[in-house]
């Protein structure tokens, strides 16, 4: 196996699928640029949350009152694990000739992601039951927008994965499908990083105060 130069950051298909590797450069690079734009969006949501989490409470519930830290911790674990399983799926995509491993790890990722969304919706439901609705205060408005934007991203990722399951079945592991899986992987890992920030700055800081 000849070692191919890295054409873009992250996993390269170089040594196992040279054709896909050759065409991947602008496509994966463009997706990195998209992720950067998306991260700017999250950065602004974080900044807004930072400016409103304390000043915008308006005499309503505070972070300690409404955050369920154990639940958020379980969500963190679910999402972090899903990143590992997606990583294994990516390795299977590169090194395994059959789709069995790939699909196995992807299905596991999907289940973990769906579990995360389910837990998050449950958290939201509990908060809304307690009267901690986004209409109550600036703090809650910014909390719901930040966390739900992340949640919507994860949900979009799940839909994307469903479409790719279908494409794996219809087309098999063509170059297009491979490159789409690689982009979904990058998207998924980015959402993980964003969640780590949410867990730290929103949940941990919120409860520590």
């Amino acid at each position, binding site marked *: 196996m000849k070692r191919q130069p890295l054409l873009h950051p992250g996993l390269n298909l170089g040594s196992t699928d040279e054709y896909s590797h050759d065409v991947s*450069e*602008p*496509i994966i*690079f*463009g997706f990195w*640029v*998209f992720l*950067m*734009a*998306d991260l*700017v*969006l999250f950065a*602004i*949501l974080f900044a*807004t949350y930072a*400016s*409103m989490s304390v*000043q*915008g*409470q*308006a005499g*309503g519930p505070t972070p300690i009152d409404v955050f369920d830290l154990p639940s958020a911790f379980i969500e963190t674990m679910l999402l972090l694990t899903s990143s590992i399983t997606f990583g294994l799926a990516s390795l299977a995509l590169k090194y395994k000739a059959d789709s069995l491993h790939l699909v196995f790890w992807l299905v596991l990722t999907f289940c973990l992601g769906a579990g995360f969304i389910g837990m998050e919706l449950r958290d939201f439901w509990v908060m809304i039951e307690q009267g901690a609705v*986004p*209409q*109550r*205060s*600036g*703090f809650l*408005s*910014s909390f*719901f*927008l930040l966390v739900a934007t992340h949640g919507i991203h994860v949900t979009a990722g799940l839909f994307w994965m469903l*479409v790719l399951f279908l*494409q794996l079945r*219809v*087309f098999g592991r*063509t170059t*297009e499908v491979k490159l*789409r899986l690689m982009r979904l992987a990058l998207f998924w890992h980015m959402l993980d990083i964003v969640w780590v920030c949410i867990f730290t700055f929103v949940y941990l800081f919120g409860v520590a105060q």
Partner: protein
Amino acid sequence: MTAESSFSLLGILTAQDISFVHTFEHPGMSEFIDASAGGVMVMGGIIVIALLTYYRGWHALWCDWLTSVDHKKVGIMYVVVAFVMLARAIIEGVLMRYQQSIAVNDPGILSPDHFGQLFSTHGSIMIFFVAMPFVTGMMNYIMPQQIGARDVSFPLLNAISLWLTAAGAALVMISLVVGKFSTGGWTAYPPYTGIEFSPGEGVDYWIWSISLASIGSTLTGLNFATTIYKNRAPGMTLFRMPLFCWTSLCTSVLMIFAMAPLTIATLMLALDRYAGFHFFTNDLGGNMMNYANLFWLFGHPEVYILILPAFGVFSEVISTFSGKTIYGYKSLVIATMSIAVLSFTVWLHHFFTMGQGANVNAIFGIATMLIGVPTGVKVYDWLLTMVRGRIRLTTAMLFSVMFLVTFVIGGLTGVVLANPPVDFAVHNSLFLVAHFHNMVIPGVLFGMIAGYQFWFPKAFGFRLAERWGKVSFWCWSFGFYLTFMPLYVLGLMGAMRRTVEWFRPEYLGWLQVSFVGALLLFSGFLFLCVQLVVSIRQRDQRRVPAGDPWDGRSLEWSNSSPPPEYNFAVIPDVTGQDAFTRIKQQGQAYASPIAYEDIVVPKNSIVAPVIGIAAIMFGFALVWHIWWLVVFSFVCMWGAVIARSFVTETERVIPASKVRADNEAWLQQVRECATTPREQENTSVNVGRAEVLT
């Protein structure tokens, strides 16, 4: 029950929201003007449809244009959108100047509410639907050719960006007939634009048209940045790129970073208005300063998103029409990059008066003045490019020279405004209005018109009529000075912006001069239209099939006019700056390539129009709370994306034999063309083959 359910099918839309019905029921001068504007738009639409039907143009329009993903066609469509919107926004500007010039101790002809809509649509359209599409269209058409690429990296995404921008423009146009537009200005500051003070559909029209356009621009930015980083011809290193490519790159990077704050700000405003959130409300923890910061975190880089490509155009035009390599290439690149970085450090100067304290203001004031340094470097570089050049004062060059003079004046008033104490005295006055028009009209509009004059022959294969171009130029120039210099004076006299009626008789004379200037600006626009019509009629005497009417320096001049859809029969090998000039001087221009290869080009796709039309429906449905249509159009948009991902045959191959036949035929034609000395470039002698001076 049935009445109620049929009512909800159209959300909160009622017959009274149609401007014609409204005017019929409440006749008045202001309403009449509103209905006439709507009528002109509807008539215009009907005429276009009738003409298309009469000349059987639908098929060509659909197959050659609307579904095309060719970067050149997408670019031209962007510019068409910009021109159409420019016509509306410039008329609105004239109307506002007229209102102000007669409204001294008199209510004038416009109601305050109508006046508010006018300045809101004028500003929003000029920034988002004239300047942005013009700039984006120009980059689309030129940049890939200048770097020796066959298309942008993501052609379909490019078409989708176009359609999202066009959808935003369509929403603003629809607001002319259905309902009202926002009265909150182009910045739409809450809490005024919150639901409490601005109920109704106006602000919602603003929110959704701007949101669509901002998403389109984000996608454009990432597409162009990827293209420039990854699609350059062999040998086209970054420091061999023409300056227009550098400015396109900086603009793309700015778009990637700066559009997100706007998208988020409009989304938050929408959540406040639709769902009772408290981002920018007065009560329950809302904070409108967050809006001001987010908006200008976008808004200031936006100024440079618009101006940098124009700087690129000026660099190309001045260098070409001086017959010289650009002076201080590296310093221009560094200055461009510095401006791009600094543009993120000055947003606060848009609201010095909103209470952040003296030290913060001082820092941002200094940062603002710093931007003058790289801009000054550029001005000197352009001047020094002209020194000892063989200058030809074509229309494009006239616009560039007038830009230099006028822009420096505007820049100086900008440095004045960057002093927080001065800013406190004149903020929100007509001084400010004069200042930013003084930057944007020469800095963006003149640049785009210069680029349009310069590259028109490339895009359509014939030169524009210089005579009418020059008439237009003088109208724009005098019109600009007559309109906006009085506004500086008025601002210093204490006249505030966005005022519908005055009570100070000493304003009258200045306002009348300003109105005359506005009429001149409008005639400048009309003469551009005349120029276009005249040039189309005389196109056979103006053709430049050889493709190089101005003795151009960069690669886009090395192919035919108009270029083939694949741009280059064979991707050129670049050996240095001013790539085409080098090729010409080495005597290698129009040489037959050794070998031809098959060329892969993207197929047309209906995905972009589907997304665009669904986006119009989506925005309209959100404005009028037609929830079923919101869901339906959302599903259409994403359904189109997903369906597209199942299409595998997205490209077609142009066989090498066809490329060879076409290219050799063109080369043969060029070799038979007489060369044009520069003195005769505006005569029918010029068929696009330049005389080479070595």
